[in-house]
């Protein structure tokens, strides 16, 4: 038993030491958080981004963050919003994702007669609310600033 514990301990320790030299695997991040942005209030949009930045700073590779924007909140991801300037830089973090609601984009396009332009680094999901629900079902935590 002692030997087993010792050799298992050695194996684990070596694996741990090796793991430190491999690239980060965000699919396995310890914590996952989806942040909802559904308002065009600039202050709230800024807070959502601040939350993401602070979490990134505090937890590093231990966290994966997805910011889902829909309804009036979609503006955050379009050049029309002053806050959207911050988005492309944040999207460069491997563990921060921005998702735009496809439904809202269609609605906006119909109203204005032209396609919605998104800032760089944003992906499109079919429906924002659905996306948040799916992530929660997969065990993600959820915050709405």
């Amino acid at each position, binding site marked *: 038993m002692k030997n087993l*514990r*010792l050799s298992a*301990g*050695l194996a*684990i*320790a*070596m694996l*741990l*030491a090796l793991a*430190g030299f491999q690239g980060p695997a965000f699919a396995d991040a310890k*914590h996952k*958080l989806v942040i909802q942005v559904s308002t065009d209030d600039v202050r*709230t949009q800024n*807070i959502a981004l601040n*939350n993401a930045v*602070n*979490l990134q700073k*505090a*937890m590093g590779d231990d*966290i994966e963050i997805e910011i889902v924007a829909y309804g009036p909140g979609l503006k955050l991801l379009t050049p029309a919003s002053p806050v959207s300037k911050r988005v492309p830089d944040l999207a460069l973090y491997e563990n921060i994702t921005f998702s735009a609601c496809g439904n809202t984009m269609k609605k906006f396009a119909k109203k204005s007669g032209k396609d919605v332009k998104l800032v760089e680094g944003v992906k499109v999901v079919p429906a924002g609310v659905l996306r948040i629900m799916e992530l929660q079902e997969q*065990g993600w*935590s*959820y*915050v*709405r*600033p």
Partner: protein
Amino acid sequence: MTEINKISDEMLNAFIDHELSDDDMMQIYMAMSKDADLRAHVCDLRATRDLVRSAYQVSPLLGKAKRLPSRFPAWGLAAAIASLSLGGLLGWLAYPVWHPAAPSALVAGVDDPSASRVRVVFHASRNDADAFEQILDEAETLLAAKTGGRTANLVRIVANGEGLYLLSARTSPFKDRIQQLNAQHKNHIVFAGCSQTRKRMKRERGESIELLPEVLMVNSGVIELLELQEEGWRYMPI
């Protein structure tokens, strides 16, 4: 059994490095005096820090390597790996000694996922008195509901951003109600304020917010929300 013993590792590391304010240091000393698991955990963290430090002294890895070139980088690396491995091994081997029982008190407070109790964390991120009043009403209803003859539901109210004003000793319109709820449902309701927000307000607006005496200060409101949900708490934003 308290349910406010949840202190993040980040906070504990800052504690070990003496980087906290006197108040925060005191709070952790108090928590440690009551909690053997917490003491063991701090000891654990401290050991890890010391091992990492000694490894860095042999050969600085990562970013610092450029500034301090070693003539035998491979030896430094090997020593670092050996120290880390040794740390992991020691920790693993010593685990049964330091933790005679599972360290549940540190993680979950009074949470018991198998119980039928409802655990709800409310989130106040805006200074919206009407919405906050609704939260207090809902909390009161939850706490009044009895399961098996005793109050079993748990409520936490986490405030960050502008929501911090709702828990401020100077500006909260709900001082009396918070005090009364807290006294009436001790151990079943916790009000928590985000210390990151408090620091930011101090830095950006020169404003220092004193929180009501009933309010517990947590290092980060968002991390609190994240972790409670991971433990199975239901989340309700304003």
